[in-house]
């Protein structure tokens, strides 16, 4: 089989040469940040590090970490490294409260990001002959625009469907003969079921590949999707903080995602001590951007727990591979592709007059995430009819839906029936068991 790459020279660059390239870029990137982002300059000064101390990748460990908290503290402009007039785009995480992270892009940054997505599309077998149906959400969410831009770079015919409206998705998929599908894995599974319900066999559609990401999914789910749609399903990874999807992607060997490390330098650290761990260790993934202009982040802690490997990949790419993230090291949940913080639910409860005693249970039924919220009923909220209580449950579910964009099942329970704990309460039970 002919090996295909979007940017062959970089993608198969020998490791020593790649590392040299990373070192050169890192020195420049650190200087750029130090000179233009006072917040990070302060962090460096507190640690006693100057750009002169950074000669290459080997000096990376000297730099201070950044976390989501830093991004929140500097919201909205504190991490901007170029004049705002140089920026051409803003994207944002799905956070709807104080958790929102805003990312800025110059045209250079957009090109870089879209090229990463283009690499993913080509790795999935895409070319200018393909019709790429993008049903990630468009808008502030990076999923839609990232794959859309990548598809343009490849020269594929791009169908900017955005999310939802399954009837129309299927109509376009069949009528226009889409060959590559881009969406969340749960939506891909749903499309598979919907096609079956309408009497289509897996061989009836024209799809050959799917690029799925933005939420955790299992190997079992991959096989289900591949079977129901008659395609090969590829994983893609990214986060708004680093650009969006395309930071890492799977090749045809489906053995982990190649990190585009000519742009994003990856490290694995011990989430508790911050110590850098050797290759093959499980730990928190940390990214350092290497050539971003507007929103460069050095040693950004993703909270994703994974393992890196440099074992040779049969596809010929030399870029390091990461396993599917096994979970987050903080309390953020990804439910149906949407970032959910327990604190957001807490906010709604308080607004709606409930005490913040609650338990969140996330599970997966038929390849779709479910969200159950258990809340204690206060004496003044108690009514003597079942309809009175179910009406309260519905109203609260509606308020949570408005906040998160996800419809939860709300269960009102007796006072004091939710376990209290000393210190940090266990408010979240994730039963999805996606990974062993």
């Amino acid at each position, binding site marked *: 089989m002919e090996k295909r790459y979007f940017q062959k020279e970089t993608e198969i660059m020998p490791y020593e040469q790649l590392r040299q390239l990373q070192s050169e870029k890192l020195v420049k990137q650190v200087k750029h940040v130090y000179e233009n982002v006072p917040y990070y300059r302060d962090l460096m000064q507190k640690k006693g590090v100057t750009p002169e101390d950074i000669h290459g990748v080997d000096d990376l460990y000297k730099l201070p970490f950044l976390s989501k908290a830093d991004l929140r503290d500097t919201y909205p402009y504190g991490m901007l490294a170029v004049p705002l007039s140089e920026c051409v785009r803003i994207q944002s995480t799905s956070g709807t409260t104080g958790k929102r992270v805003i990312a800025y892009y110059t045209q250079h940054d957009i090109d870089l990001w879209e090229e990463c997505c283009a690499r993913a599309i080509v790795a999935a077998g895409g070319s200018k002959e393909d019709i790429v149906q993008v049903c990630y959400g468009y808008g502030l969410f990076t999923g839609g625009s990232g794959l859309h831009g990548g598809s343009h770079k490849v020269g594929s015919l791009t169908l900017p469907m955005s999310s939802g409206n399954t009837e129309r998705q299927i109509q376009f998929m069949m009528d226009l003969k889409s060959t590559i599908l881009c969406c969340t894995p749960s939506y891909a599974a749903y499309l598979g079921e919907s096609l079956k319900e309408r009497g289509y066999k897996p061989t009836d559609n024209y799809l050959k590949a799917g690029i799925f990401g933005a939420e955790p999914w299992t190997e079992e789910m991959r096989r289900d999707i591949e079977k129901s749609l008659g395609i090969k399903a590829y994983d893609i990874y990214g986060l708004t903080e680093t650009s969006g999807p395309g930071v890492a992607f799977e090749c045809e060997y489906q053995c982990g995602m190649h990190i585009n490390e000519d742009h994003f330098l990856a490290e694995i650290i011990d989430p508790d001590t911050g110590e850098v761990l050797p290759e093959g260790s499980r730990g928190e993934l940390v990214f350092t951007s290497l050539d971003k202009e507007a929103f460069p982040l050095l040693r950004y802690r993703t909270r994703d727990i994974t393992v890196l490997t440099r074992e040779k990949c049969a596809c010929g790419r030399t870029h390091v591979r990461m396993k599917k993230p096994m979970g987050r090291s903080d309390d953020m949940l990804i439910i149906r592709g949407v970032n959910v913080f327990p604190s957001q639910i807490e906010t709604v409860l308080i607004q709606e007059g409930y005490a913040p005693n609650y338990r969140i249970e996330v599970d997966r039924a038929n390849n779709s995430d479910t969200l159950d919220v258990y809340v204690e*009923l206060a*004496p003044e909220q*108690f*009514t*003597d*009819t*079942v309809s009175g*209580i*179910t009406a309260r449950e519905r109203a609260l579910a509606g308020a949570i839906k408005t906040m998160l964009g996800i419809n939860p099942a709300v*269960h*009102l*329970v*007796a*006072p*004091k*029936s939710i376990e209290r704990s000393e210190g940090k309460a266990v408010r979240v039970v994730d039963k999805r068991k996606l990974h062993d």
Partner: protein
Amino acid sequence: MAIQQLTVFLENKQGKLAKVTDLLAKEGVDLRALSIADTAEFGILRMIVSNIEKAKKVLVENGILVKITDVVGVRLTDKPGELADVLSKLDGAGVNVEYLYAFLVPVAGSAYVALRVAENDEAEQILKKAGFHLVEAKDIAS
């Protein structure tokens, strides 16, 4: 005029009802009537008891969610068609009955029914006019 019902929120779990009845038993509270509306997750226990203040106190002290609700008590003659008659009178006057249940009768040949409606006074007037006997608090006290 209305009688007081003790309403209790119960999680639909084993032992929850037993705990309530046990607490009431220890306080010497007598149950005159009892009904449960249940869903898969919770139940609403409605009781007419001999001493509602005492009952409420002990349950609240034990962390149980309670509420006092006014209901209309009506005494019927124990014969076919009596309840149908009550309901048709209320229905004819546009009064919606949310729920009802029967309860223990200290008077032979009679039946007591507790009715939950939106407007107690209105329902009571309708039933009085129709010649029914209303149950009063003294009829159920110990």
